[in-house]
């Protein structure tokens, strides 16, 4: 069964350091999402790609966060510098398209702890 791959699964870093997360969506899925999930809360959309283009990054803290999907396939989410409040699970999801009944398939997530 096709899966969304994410790495690393766990990352511990000190504040002010740089951190990067990688996501490889299901083959053929045009839409890719990065969500941040604080423990005990629902996922919050950070950025959404349609192929290589950003569709929505309105909630992405652009002073420290960046995301790219250069060839419209895999994607990287970077944080620099990391802050204590960035500790969370970073979830990647993909879907065949960006509308209608398209269901999101999630990866296992990358758990970030900032010390």
């Amino acid at each position, binding site marked *: 069964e096709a899966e969304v791959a994410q790495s690393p699964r766990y990352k511990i870093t000190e504040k002010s350091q740089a951190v990067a997360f990688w996501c490889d969506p299901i083959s053929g899925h045009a839409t890719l999402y990065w969500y941040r999930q604080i423990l005990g809360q*629902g996922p919050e959309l950070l950025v*959404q790609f349609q192929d290589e283009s950003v569709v*929505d990054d309105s909630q992405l803290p652009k002073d420290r966060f960046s995301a790219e999907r250069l060839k419209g396939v895999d994607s990287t989410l970077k944080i620099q510098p990391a802050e204590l409040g960035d500790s969370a699970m970073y979830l990647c999801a993909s879907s065949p398209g960006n*509308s209608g009944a398209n*269901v*999101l398939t999630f990866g296992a997530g990358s758990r970030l702890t900032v010390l």
Partner: protein
Amino acid sequence: AQTVTQSQPEMSVQEAETVTLSCTYDTSESDYYLFWYKQPPSRQMILVIRQEAYKQQNATENRFSVNFQKAAKSFSLKISDSQLGDAAMYFCALRSGEKVIFGPGTSLSVIP
């Protein structure tokens, strides 16, 4: 603005019993979709059930069914014959246009 609200942070149910999780939403769109996702302790989110807003018939998937009240903007999930494996966080989600937003979640415990 679109919103999704889940008013029950925690719920519990006896094994083999039935439980209903509540969700209300708000959107100005006429075409939208609603979903329930399950996130077990291993943390990978999986789809439980989905509902097209234009369909009046409530969706069902085995032991899972929804009560979709469009006028009230309510979308509750009923789990019948609850099993230990149903213990998880449950998130209600709304897709309207390109965006998918999630509610804060309900933590479901299943008591043996």
